[in-house]
């Protein structure tokens, strides 16, 4: 079970809590976790990564285990602690004012 923490505005959009739990087959990656997240919460499609290019949106960040994973390759394995469910994968709105 993968744990994902969402920023407040996306919790509201998805009508869910701060943390959601996802089933992801195999070794989890950013791509497989976000695919599972969007399947479970279709309202989030296009809000974390571009619907067409699948690129991370410029002001969204991915943190886990106190590391910034935003610039990691989408298919790179996530840390073991995330894969085991010991640590959550954080989706964070960047500090960009507004």
């Amino acid at each position, binding site marked *: 079970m993968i744990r994902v923490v969402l*920023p*407040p*505005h*996306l919790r*509201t*959009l998805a009508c869910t809590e701060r943390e959601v739990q996802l089933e992801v087959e195999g070794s989890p990656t950013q791509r497989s976790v976000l695919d599972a997240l969007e399947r479970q919460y279709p*309202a989030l*499609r*296009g*809000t*974390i990564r*571009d*619907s*067409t290019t699948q690129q991370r*949106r410029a*002001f*969204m960040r991915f943190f886990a285990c106190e590391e910034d994973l935003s610039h990691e390759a989408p298919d790179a394995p996530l840390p073991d602690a995330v894969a085991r469910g010991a640590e959550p994968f954080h989706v964070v*709105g*960047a500090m*960009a004012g*507004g």
Partner: protein
Amino acid sequence: MSGVRVLVGTRKGAFVLSSDGKREQWSVSGPHFGGWEIYHVKGSPADPDRLYASQSSSWSGQVIQRSNDGGSTWEPVGNQFVYDGVPGTHQWYDGTPHPWEFARVWHLEPSMTDPDTVYAGVEDAALFRSSDAGQTWQELSGLRGHGSGPSWQPGAGGMCLHTIILDPQDAARMTVAISAAGVFRSDDAGTTWRPANRGLRSGEIPQSEAEVGHCVHRLAMHPSRPDVLFMQKHWDVMRSDDAGESWHEISGDLPSDFGFAIDVHAHEPDTVYVVPITSDSLHYPPEGKLRVYRSRAGGDEWEPLAKGLPQRDCYVNVLRDAMAVDSLDSCGVYFGTTGGQVYGSADAGDNWTPIVRDLPAVLSVEVQTLP
């Protein structure tokens, strides 16, 4: 008893202001989608309970919301706006080619006859249509593809398609406006388009009477007379009597012919409203006095309407989509400001009262007249 519902889009959420036909007591619901920019909310003329809202943020992009119960509850629908084919380039601010990139939906225009059909005007400028109540969107790419697209340039607010006028007497005719490209008309339901800017003069472009490149801020039409269009341009208030084939200036005695919003009285097709703004660099009312100007002659002769509006130290702006009218008798007129006020007049502009004073900056105001 009849009533009105005022749909307000702001920088930090949407608000619904409701009143009975007297328009004296108002209830306020919201913020809906708090924290998100709501560029526009509009109801279907064919089903007043069907509303569409454009919700966006710099962080999370575009969301389209739909309500089937007059705004009590909402559900996100489709948010994929993909340009048809190879998007190509338009001009950037410095004149260099810039790839077409979707940024946001500025304006939603539901069909007059089908609640499930809705048009979206977007930045970078293009027109999309949904025929399944917002679930999927298809570009009407003849607009960008008619030939002049590569020469379009953004205005200060972005290169947005902000006005969509559907002709109530001819389902095949549509007119749109883009900042800063100008007016375009289709006579075949959006398949092919041509510029409709003859008569416009703009000192901000190299050829002042060019076929495209004009910073048109807003168009308005009275449904009983669709061949007559009114325009608030960057500078100049303009009128067309031939559905955009040609334009002539009607700024007349306005204190400034710069502005954004323009609208037409619900029952008097020659009664027009504008809110003069000082200049393109001073986006606030002349002399710090917020005044709506009304012409009862279809332009040229204007009277200030100031009763109930601040007449000193007022430095707000009224944006292009932030004025609307109801169709009660007498006609109600509403507008919102960047200072968060929404003003209403239940007597065609003679007297104004603030419905709300302290919303986030208002981006858009629409009105539904309810049975």
